[in-house]
């Protein structure tokens, strides 16, 4: 019974195989959750199509290198919608379910850390977002003749920034929600509040001025403005950048303080 006879134990850290297996498991979980798979992709496309039918997609906005109102307003709203649905509604509901069902606790007794689940979930979510973005841009181009952004790399950068902001809001929702049901409820309220003030249901200019200004710095409106600027070849508004940056930093910090594994 002497501890001195104990041989040293090797450190066991999950390798690439474990990471891929966990990401594969997360992808299967998302694919088998019909609503979680279809709603974040189907609803935005539906809104895109409805807007495309209602818009005169041939009217070019002056000074935008031939981009139409459809390119500059409808497409950014659709793309932001996809990112926000996955980041703010889907992702926290998965994490809340994992916490509720004890999966994070179960992983806590294996070499895989619960942090791996967060990363795998984020990777799968981003893959789902990419599928949604490609689908939306494809439908917009094929059905309504949508144009690519004047400044492609700015658009890519702003999309990445939008993903960071929406995921940080999603992490905050996951941190404060006590149950999976409440995470969906909180996520949907946060989503629709940001979307309504950000121009999803009509031009932000139609809102009372204080609300329009608030909507412009909340992540949905800020993302729409930033992507619209990239599509038009304009300089991205500072207010949009600040809004996305502050959202990312503050939400991440608060989520990190409040997040519970159990």
């Amino acid at each position: 019974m002497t501890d001195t006879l104990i041989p040293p134990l090797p450190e066991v850290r999950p390798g690439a195989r474990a990471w891929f297996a966990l990401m594969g498991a997360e992808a299967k979980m998302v694919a088998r959750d019909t609503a979680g798979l279809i709603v974040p992709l189907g609803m935005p496309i539906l809104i895109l199509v409805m807007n495309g039918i209602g818009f005169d997609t041939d009217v070019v906005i002056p000074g935008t290198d031939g981009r139409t109102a459809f390119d500059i307003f409808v497409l950014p709203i659709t793309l932001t919608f996809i990112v926000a649905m996955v980041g703010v509604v889907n992702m926290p509901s998965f994490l809340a379910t994992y916490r509720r069902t004890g999966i994070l606790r179960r992983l806590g007794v294996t070499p895989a850390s619960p942090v791996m689940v967060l990363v795998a979930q984020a990777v799968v979510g981003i893959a789902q977002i990419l599928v949604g973005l490609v689908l939306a841009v494809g439908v917009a181009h094929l059905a309504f003749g949508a144009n690519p952004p004047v400044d492609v790399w700015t658009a890519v950068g702003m999309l990445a920034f939008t993903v960071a902001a929406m995921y940080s809001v999603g992490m905050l929702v996951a941190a404060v929600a006590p149950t999976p049901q409440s995470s969906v409820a909180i996520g949907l309220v946060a989503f629709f509040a940001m979307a309504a003030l950000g121009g999803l249901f009509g031009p932000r200019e139609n809102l009372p001025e204080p609300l329009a200004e608030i909507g412009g710095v909340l992540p949905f409106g800020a993302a729409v403005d930033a992507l619209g600027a990239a599509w038009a070849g304009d300089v991205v508004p500072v207010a949009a950048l600040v809004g996305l940056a502050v959202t990312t930093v503050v939400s991440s910090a608060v989520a990190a303080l409040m997040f519970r594994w159990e």
Partner: protein
Amino acid sequence: MTRGTRLRLPAVPSVGAMTAIRATNLRKEFRRRGRTTVAVDDVSLHVEVGEIVGLLGRNGAGKSTTVDLVSGLRAPEAGTVRVLGHDPRADRAKVRGVLGVQLQQPRLHDALTVREVVRLHRSFYPTGREPDELIEAMGLTDSRSTPFADLSGGQMQRTSIAVALVGNPRVVILDELTTGLDPEARRGMLDLVRGLREDGTTVLLVSHHMDEVEKLCDRAVVLDAGRVVAENTPAGLAVDAGLAPDAGLEEAYLTLTGATR
């Protein structure tokens, strides 16, 4: 588990006499709505390599909290835990590679099938058992393509045990091993634990079933209200309780914990 199917794990290298699990003066409190409950109070126990030790106690005695502390899921307010000489929280990467834990509630990914769940957990370890062999040994072959959420309670339990063993652990903690199992599956699980002993695996077995502990365990630790009230061989516990050595563990347990029949 299929009758007659013995689970064979690779033999654990002999490393001489040593302590596989050593918990010393553990204390754990839970605070809720201004109230503090002491779940585990000054608990010390040890399990030598290759031993099977039972952890007994009524509901709320502190058994599962002790499992959480030993497996490193929770940090104690006081006391220390060593698994093969290492702190399961500070040396997480070392301990997790040699420790297999079956938690009381079998909780795994609902939408994944049995095979997918076991394969996923196998991927976390550099070496381990072949998932399909383990699934067969657990009697889950016919259910291997069934999502975890659609399994019966007993099948969930067996999947949870498979997941605990898939990394070839040297130390295994089984919390309520046979809960929810039918008599045949229960017997298979007892054979499984015997197989683990033959392979040199150390087992901490948390149980309500006195017959199980009596048949399988070298020693048993009895918890009551968060404290260790006795620790001995099953026969020794009877003597500790002031009974004849052959009085049986159940009588000894009831006497030691002050329970009435």
